């Protein structure tokens, strides 16, 4: 029996967990096999052999292998049919394994039911899942290797000279946009100092390597005050947009959050349905980034701050409901029981026993959300949501990096202030 027999559980629940365990186990072994074939064979071993085969003195055995297999990593695509077949084989292996062993799948599936009453059983439990633990370690290793391969991690690319020069030039221009950096103090400016500093590295490179490159010599024309005043106007738009979005999402989220808490919706089937509906709605809206909502609303309502704030609001409501309802799920049960025992109706129980317990966490989450919204409001303009982002995207498309630098600096200021403020307020009300 895979579900530990000494853990007390109702029989039907035990069955459910065991079936879930088998299914998870099947997926895990499918994943293992796909890793072995797609990643290990076709993304690591074969490209490795290929590299050897076309190396300067070609390795004959490697060349032979590559030619018989007719493998070319540039054009190779893993066929979907193989994918499904391998997944299927993996599932069969997983199924067989989960009949025999107490694997990772059944461990995950039963993890929420694993409280045992006496200490001996917890020792037994420890031994029960030995195999599961080995599987978990393999799972982590496999996932790290896959991630490494899929993200094309390459240290060499980080240090190639052309890329470094480009990044240096761009940073110089961006820095030029920060007020004060380009102004002369005496004969030189902070900007000149930065350029000189970067050129030290260029000179070092030229001294060590044979491929000489030119020194940086980018001139800096700082933005004047009128540009900043225009930008600050747009910045204010962003801040207010964020505030409006937060302000109107709070009452909606407040009401919804009680229906989205497991502990308040246990008592009837209808309530559980409402719970599931709200949770699914939330997960759908939350998994779509505000940027995408902003695109949708800017098409619907037209480009401008209103579209941006609606986009933020949709996202805020679902994020707040999630955080609020977690707070509601964490309240003490005692007062709820006590008020139920007085014969109070359900709304009164929530209002008098739950709300006083969650009001401070709610406030903290709200302020945090406002903070996040201000940050988001600065980028939401990139896709037509109004605010400072809308000029940021224009400047960036014209490659006016000095202006982009100025705007980024303003955004930094606001984000920093908000972060400071919200941390202080949250501290004060805790």
């Amino acid at each position, binding site marked *: 029996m895979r579900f530990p027999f000494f853990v*007390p559980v*109702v029989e039907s629940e035990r069955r459910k967990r065991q079936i879930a365990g088998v299914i998870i186990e099947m997926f895990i072994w499918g994943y293992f096999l796909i890793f072995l074939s797609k990643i290990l064979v076709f993304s690591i071993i074969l490209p490795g052999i290929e590299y050897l085969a076309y190396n300067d003195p070609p390795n004959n055995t490697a060349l032979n292998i590559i030619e018989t297999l007719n493998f070319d990593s540039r054009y190779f695509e893993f066929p979907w049919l193989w994918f499904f077949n391998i997944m299927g084989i993996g599932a069969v292996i997983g199924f067989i394994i989960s009949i025999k062993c107490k694997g990772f799948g059944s461990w995950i599936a039963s993890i929420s039911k694993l409280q045992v009453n006496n200490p001996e059983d917890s020792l037994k439990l420890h031994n029960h899942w030995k195999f599961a633990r080995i599987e978990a370690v393999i799972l982590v290793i496999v996932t790290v290797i896959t991630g490494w391969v899929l993200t094309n991690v390459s240290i060499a690319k980080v240090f190639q000279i052309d890329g470094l020069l480009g990044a240096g030039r761009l940073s110089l221009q961006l820095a030029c946009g920060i007020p004060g950096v380009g102004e002369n103090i005496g004969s030189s400016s902070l900007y000149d100092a930065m350029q000189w500093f970067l050129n030290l590295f260029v000179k070092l490179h030229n001294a060590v390597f044979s491929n000489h490159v030119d020194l940086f010599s980018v001139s800096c024309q700082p933005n004047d005050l009128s540009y900043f005043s225009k930008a600050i106007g747009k910045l204010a738009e962003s801040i207010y947009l964020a505030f409006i979005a937060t302000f109107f999402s709070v009452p909606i989220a407040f009401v919804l959050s009680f229906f989205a808490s497991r502990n308040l919706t246990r008592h009837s089937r209808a309530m559980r349905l409402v719970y599931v509906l709200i949770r699914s709605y939330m997960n759908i809206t939350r998994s779509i980034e505000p940027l995408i909502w902003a695109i949708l609303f800017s098409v619907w309502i037209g480009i401008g701050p209103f579209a941006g704030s609606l986009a933020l609001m949709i996202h805020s409501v679902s994020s707040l409901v999630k955080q609020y309802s977690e707070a509601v799920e964490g309240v003490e049960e005692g007062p709820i*029981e*006590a008020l139920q*025992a007085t*014969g109070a*109706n359900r709304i009164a129980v929530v209002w008098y026993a739950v709300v006083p*317990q969650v009001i401070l966490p709610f406030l903290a989450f709200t302020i945090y959300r406002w903070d996040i919204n201000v940050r988001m409001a600065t980028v939401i303009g990139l896709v037509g949501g109004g605010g400072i982002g809308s000029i940021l995207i224009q400047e960036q498309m014209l490659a006016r990096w000095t202006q982009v630098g100025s705007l980024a600096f303003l955004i930094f200021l606001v984000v920093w202030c908000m972060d400071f403020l919200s941390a202080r307020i949250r501290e004060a009300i805790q």
Partner: protein
Amino acid sequence: MTFQPARDYEFILQVKDLVKTYPNGTKALKGVSFNVPKGAFLAVIGLSGSGKSTLLRCINRIHEPTSGSMIFEGRDITHVKEQQLREARTKIGMVFQHFNLVNRRNVLNNVLTGRLGRLENKFLGGIFQKWPEKWIEEAYQALRIVGIEDKALIRADGLSGGQKQRVAIARTLMQHPDLLLADEPVASLDPSTSYSVMNYLRDLNQKHNITVVCNLHFLSLVRDYSTHVIALKNGELVFEGKPTDITEKWFKDIYGSDAREVEIH
């Protein structure tokens, strides 16, 4: 049955074959039957985990019983709908080991919540109504009965354990209950505070004519305060009688053969 008044309606509460199985499979009550005469002070004793708390929570259906029935003041409340259940609950007060006050609100507000069962359900369960002046007066009176009127406007988390329990008692007083369920009301209090809280419970029992069903751990308290005793062991009723009937033999039966009686003074 050891105590059996002449006529049926003299039982304020009749419990028949009560079974409670928790979702995780624990059988906390395995068919418990007993009757509570009107005006009794019934003590429920038994080892930790024997199902005492479960029993009390099943009586007012904070936990739904798995099977069996409860008849309260002649009415079967085992299967009634929420509306009638709430009506029955307004007549059954409850006091908890951990007081279960709303810590962030003041004492007066906590006491007033005892009346929530009588709140008129106008809009959204009536939560936006102000407390009627009369209720506030009564709340002060209830606080006076338990002797902490002066703490009325202090936040509940600023009180000591004994004071909290008295607030909880004042809260049930607001209900004007006919039956009071007390789940180890003194288990987290020191001995002398325990006695003072128990004295308040006895006052309710004798002066206000409230029947009390009280889980207790200390036999000395049982002997001092209760008029009837039942004992649970592993979810089953193993003793029913007067406190004076608990002999050495019964004691070993209820608490296991290694147990020794401890006194609190």
